[in-house]
């Protein structure tokens, strides 16, 4: 569904992505793990054209979407759940969600938008209870639900998620990742960028490891969980734990 070839991008003279190539097949959960500053967020921002590409290309559903305007990608069926949630804090939960379906409303598909809203309320009942509350007053986990819901409102086939576990308690992280699995079971394709390697590898099908702007490792989630380098660098185990 998503194919990236030799992608390069950065801010002015600072090159962040140094030739990234990856692919995501339809119905997969693929994760990119890596430490702070590896370029994970920049990669997602480049896919959504918030950061401009300087080389390589991005192909979504067989169409070249390198450097298109962000609204076009949403129309094509790819939505981003941004890092740090990025809600409209002084607007209500419902307004936040409605705006996620902005492109649908613009195409006069009100019925579809309403359907999506109902589905999101069934998935996150707490959001329906709080629909008139200002989004900025919700707890971190609820805000993450709004962020995911807002991205789903446009009815995307593919969801890009940027650190959904950020700043959340372990139990809530579990809930969020369970939701991600549910979404996959409903047929969505998911590319998820995470620092919390252990949690995300448990639900992912495949994974990439990113370090200073390049993907250094690729494999199925089980292989990565077993890989000694990954264990040492991202799962917080000492050499001793597995050399003895």
């Amino acid at each position: 569904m998503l194919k990236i070839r030799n992608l390069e991008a950065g801010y002015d003279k600072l090159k962040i992505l140094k030739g990234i190539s990856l692919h995501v097949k339809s119905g997969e959960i693929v994760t990119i793990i890596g430490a702070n500053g590896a370029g994970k967020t920049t990669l997602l921002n480049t896919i959504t054209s918030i950061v401009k590409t300087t080389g390589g290309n991005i192909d979504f559903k067989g169409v070249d979407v390198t450097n298109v305007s962000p609204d076009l990608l949403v129309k094509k069926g790819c939505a981003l759940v941004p890092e740090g949630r990025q809600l409209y804090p002084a607007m209500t939960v419902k307004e936040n969600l409605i705006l996620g379906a902005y492109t649908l409303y613009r195409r006069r598909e009100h019925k579809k938008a309403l359907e999506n809203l109902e589905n999101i309320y069934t998935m996150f009942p707490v959001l329906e209870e709080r629909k008139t509350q200002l989004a900025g007053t919700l707890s971190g986990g609820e805000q993450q639900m709004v962020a995911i819901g807002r991205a789903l409102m446009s009815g995307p086939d593919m969801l890009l998620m940027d650190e959904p576990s950020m700043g959340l308690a372990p139990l809530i992280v579990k809930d969020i990742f369970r939701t991600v699995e549910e979404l996959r079971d409903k047929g969505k394709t998911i590319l998820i960028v995470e620092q919390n390697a252990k949690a995300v590898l448990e639900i992912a099908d495949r994974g990439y490891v990113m370090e200073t702007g390049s993907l250094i490792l690729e494999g199925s989630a089980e292989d990565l969980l077993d890989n000694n380098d990954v264990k040492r660098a991202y799962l917080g185990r000492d050499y001793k734990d597995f050399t003895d």
Partner: protein
Amino acid sequence: MSAEQVLQYIFAGITVGSIYAFVAIGYNIIYNTTGIINFAQGEFVMLGGMISFTFSRFMPLFPAIIIAVLITAAIGGLIEIVFIRRMRKNSVLGMIVVTIGISILLREAALYIWDEQIRALSFFTGTEISSVSVFGARISPQVLWVLGVTLVIVGGLFFFFKFTLTGQAMRACSENSRAAKLCGIKTDSMVNFSFMLSAGIGALGGCVVSPLTQTHYAMGTDLAIKGFIVAILGGLGNPIAAVAAGLILGLLESFSISILPMAYKDVISIIILLIILVAKPSGLFGSKQVSSLKDF
């Protein structure tokens, strides 16, 4: 003070207050999409009066007003494209300073195109001496026009920002323009539209009050300051509260004349600004919750 006199003061206050409200509404619309204060808002009011006066010599009054509103809205949109759009990547403060520059530019351009003479549109209904009696006080029918137009605009804006998708999308742009882009909202056109809308509303205000208060090329600066006080008083970001705050300030000024010398009129509004900024920065009607979730 007799009851009629009190009423007379009230109507005078409401008229002045409506003009302040028109400026403050414009501030709020642009603030709502960009988070900046557009200090050229007073000039839009001036342009509305000036342009409609010029056109009213060739055509009936109402088409002239419509043309004036459209031209001023176009000027507002142009200002956004030429100046604001390329500044948006920099800082909010930078953009605010640019709007002060634009206000000087518009004022000088108006002096060049027209001159320093005071102009006034003709009264919408009747003449300057016709009056209607309201509870014993004699007021010009134009005051009723001012009130009516203000009410229609307030109602319209409330509906627009709360219930229409475009209105909600405009608010989303101010709250988090990156997230708005991710939702597929074209933030550039929303900001452009907000400039056109507030320029148009400012111009309409300038036309409606012109018969009562006259139009002068340099009237914008004064209005910009008063409008700013009103916007702060009502709570930034809330166009409806701005109208209430505008009427309050207008009434206070009008009644102050009966106790204090005329020259102290402006002192009152500045004192109010200081008190509000210290005591309740979110404004009279602003919610603390909302303002704590915004940048400023």
